[in-house]
């Protein structure tokens, strides 16, 4: 299979405009003859559904939540980037583009990233017009802050709840179209198969989570905006229901999976407290602007943090990176914390944590300063740990946060299955090997509001569609397949719960495919995961029936897919014999312990083709060309 990324020619700043001009259009009166199925209602899905419906397409939208507003985009805290240069500090589209390519450690497509930077300003305009209450200055204009190590202030924010406000904005645009009858919402439906007719994606098969019935939805094109797969690690900052099933099952139907091993580990999360922990909670990395990270110099220092004198503390980030200090990128901060804990210098009851200390800032600027900037985070920390971080330092540890990998898409966001488009975190496209702060919201909304409305029109205009309904053999087969899989799961009637298997998988993923991997650990994972998978299919126990609301069954479908996806992640990580961004191979590092890329051999997107469970997947490569931002060793010293 030859991957065609369809990147237009010409200078980078003209590519998108030229491309848009050449995309075919559909007569306004004819748009209503087309139906698009949108799966997922987060930032990407809701904005796409609303924008397509406004254009006149009929939109069917599906979500596994009870309401579109519950999608996990809602939990994003920090903000959204746009190079508006409102702060006059030298920002530009080109600088955002440059920062994003560099931050992604030169594993993203230049053309996609440039387009993202180009449309990001319109996103802010759009959200403000919807009534999103962004933070403002006293003069009434929008406020910006610097975020995630950027050297310009380009981040727009709504307190610590930017994701919530943006999602509710996109949701409001979508419910407006529901009101107009152009969007039909089917909630509590989980997509569990993609239907391909005559080589084109024509619909999806779902399980109705309330009554268990298998339902099909037909359209002329399908959009997956189903988020990331970080929950393959069991513990992550993702919501409990986040999963990779929609993308994984599309992958099994022929869509290639791009860079599955690129996972972002976020440095400032609340550490695990016990084996009962169900998820990890992220605290905005803006905390690193005012907090200092340290560990005791001596192993097993039993003293309270506040009793350890300065001379016995190691502010290791400040020591190792004098110019960036505590503000190094996420991947670097995370890895260093893990190293400290691996050396036995970790703190707290589990020894898997480092201190994030605000004492100096409190001494300098007063408690009120911290309260105003981070009050809600300190409250949340107290809520979860029962500790007062104004008095003693916070304990933090890295946690899985975002997956840069996802289904491979071309410049039009179309997967290798014609007519199936993938948006937001679900695709692999814009962040390379590491995502910068405040750019996930940007990408989700760019895809939904400003890219898919053009590119899907071209697809629909360029193709002929034979009328299809749910009685078509392809739909019937998919329904039967899903029904059989569900019956099989219900029939195992073993002894272990779904959570048991998920935890077992998560442990292998974290230990062997986590923040730092090597050939040995990855080979171990490739051996272990199929073993767990086999046990799962022999010994899982799902109570109740498949004919009604059954959360254990929902989880079982998701974990069944994670048990296959996890193996692919390990294979991808094993084959990529270099370190880059969130992918850190112990064998490939500089003398200072930084990620060591191999641009000669690995400057490509790894796109994997499914060949069957227990079969080795096929690797396809999309070479990456860097014409504008020349790859260099990242340095934050």
């Amino acid at each position, binding site marked *: 299979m030859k991957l065609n990324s369809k990147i237009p020619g010409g200078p980078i700043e003209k590519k998108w405009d030229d491309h848009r001009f050449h995309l075919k259009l559909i007569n306004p009166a004819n748009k209503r003859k087309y139906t698009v199925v949108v799966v997922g209602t987060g930032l990407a899905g809701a904005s796409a559904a609303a924008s397509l419906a406004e254009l006149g397409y009929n939109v069917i939208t599906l979500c596994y939540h009870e309401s579109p507003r519950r999608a996990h985009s809602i939990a994003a805290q920090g903000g959204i980037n746009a190079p508006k240069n409102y702060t006059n500090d030298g920002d530009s589209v080109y600088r955002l583009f440059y920062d994003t390519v560099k931050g992604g450690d030169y594993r993203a497509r230049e053309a996609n990233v440039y387009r993202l930077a180009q449309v990001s300003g319109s996103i802010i305009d759009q959200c403000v*017009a919807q009534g999103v209450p962004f933070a*403002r200055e006293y003069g009434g204009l929008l406020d910006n802050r610097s975020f995630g190590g950027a050297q310009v202030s380009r981040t727009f924010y709504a307190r610590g709840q930017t994701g919530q406000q943006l999602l509710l904005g996109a949701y409001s645009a979508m419910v407006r179209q529901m009101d107009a009858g152009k969007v039909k919402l089917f909630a509590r439906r989980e997509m569990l198969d993609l239907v391909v007719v005559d080589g084109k994606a024509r619909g999806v098969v779902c399980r109705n989570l309330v009554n268990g019935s298998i339902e099909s939805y037909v359209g002329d094109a399908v959009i997956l905006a189903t988020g990331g797969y970080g929950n393959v690690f069991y513990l992550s900052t993702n919501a*409990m229901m986040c999963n990779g099933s929609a993308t994984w099952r599309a992958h099994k139907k022929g869509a290639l999976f791009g860079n599955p091993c690129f996972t972002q580990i976020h440095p400032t999360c609340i550490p695990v407290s016990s084996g009962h922990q169900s998820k990890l909670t992220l605290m905005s990395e803006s905390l690193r602007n005012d907090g200092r990270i340290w560990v005791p110099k001596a192993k097993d220092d039993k003293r309270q943090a506040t009793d350890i004198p300065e001379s016995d503390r190691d502010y290791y980030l400040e020591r190792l990176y004098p110019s960036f200090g505590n503000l190094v990128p996420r991947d670097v901060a995370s890895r260093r914390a893990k190293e400290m804990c691996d050396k036995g210098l970790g703190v707290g009851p589990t020894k898997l944590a480092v201190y994030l200390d605000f004492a100096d800032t409190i001494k300098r600027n007063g408690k009120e300063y911290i309260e105003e900037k981070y009050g809600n985070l300190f409250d949340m920390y107290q809520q979860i740990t029962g500790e007062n971080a104004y008095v003693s330092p916070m304990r933090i540890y890295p946690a899985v946060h975002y997956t840069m990998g996802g289904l491979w898409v071309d410049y039009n966001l179309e997967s290798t299955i014609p007519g199936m488009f993938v948006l937001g975190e679900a695709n692999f496209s814009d962040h390379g090997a590491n995502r910068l702060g405040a750019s996930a919201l940007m990408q989700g909304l760019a895809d939904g509001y400003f890219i898919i409305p053009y590119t899907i029109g071209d697809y629909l205009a360029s193709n002929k569609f034979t009328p299809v309904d749910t009685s078509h053999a392809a739909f019937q087969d998919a329904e039967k397949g899903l029904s059989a899989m569900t019956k099989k799961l219900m029939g195992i009637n073993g002894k272990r719960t779904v959570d048991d298997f998920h935890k077992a998988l998560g442990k292998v993923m974290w230990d062997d495919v986590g923040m730092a991997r090597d050939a040995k650990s990855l080979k171990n994972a490739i051996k272990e995961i199929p073993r767990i998978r086999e046990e799962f299919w022999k010994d899982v126990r799902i109570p109740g029936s498949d004919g009604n609301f059954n959360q254990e069954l929902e989880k079982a479908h998701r974990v069944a897919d994670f048990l296959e996806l996890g193996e692919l992640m390990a294979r991808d990580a094993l084959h990529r014999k270099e370190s880059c961004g969130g992918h850190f191979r112990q064998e490939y590092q500089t003398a200072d312990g930084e990620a060591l890329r191999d641009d000669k051999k690995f400057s490509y997107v790894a796109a994997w083709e499914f060949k069957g469970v227990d079969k080795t997947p096929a690797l396809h490569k999309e070479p990456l060309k860097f014409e504008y931002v020349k790859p260099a060793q990242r340095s934050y010293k």
Partner: protein
Amino acid sequence: MSSSMKITLKVWRQAEKNARGRLMTYSVPDVSPDMSFLEMLDMVNNTLVRKGEDAIAFDHDCREGICGTCSLYINGRAHGPLKGVATCQLHMRSFSDGDTIVVEPWRASPFPVIKDLVVDRSSFDRIMQAGGYVSVRTGGVPDANAIPIPKAVADEAFDAAACIGCGACVAACKNSSAMLFVSAKVSQLALLPQGNAERRQRAERMVAQMDAEGFGSCSNTYACEAECPKEISVSNIARLNREFIRAKVL
């Protein structure tokens, strides 16, 4: 600190919408005070499944207090005993060894039970459809800084916009009124210039939909404000009343 506690749980079990429900008692040993309330339920569920019983169904997702999915009525209060905290952020250290905890679903006729502790809140989406938006198309909007909005106004709009749509206001209200939920959205958009053009229809249509869904009327007990995990103020209800009366009378 992490000494283990023993808890007696009384949980509402109801097989489906039209089935009869009742409280079932479960004895839960080995509860760690560091567990969240939902992690305690996870533990109970894993035990039940291993014993061959059906797991307790409950809605939850982000477990960070922002998605609004979790919805438990704990010991007679929406989201349990703490102020300004959603169920998912409630931890077992808020209870004591030997406690009996009663867990029920939200109860209101527009929130029918789906199973056990899970209810159907789609009525909230239908209310939002009836005008909980500003009619702008994608593209074709002015520059974000074209309309200055005083910081105090933007902050007040944000306070209202912080609503997570969990329905605790309805669950806590003796009349099952949704006024706090509706007023939060109406207020946000009434305060901002962007919402001004449609403020009249918005107030009228959203209230009409709220009534049609079968929510009760507000009798100003302010239980909603007291139980709201985001501490949305009842001054928003006053503003909704004003907006509505203005739309109808002026």
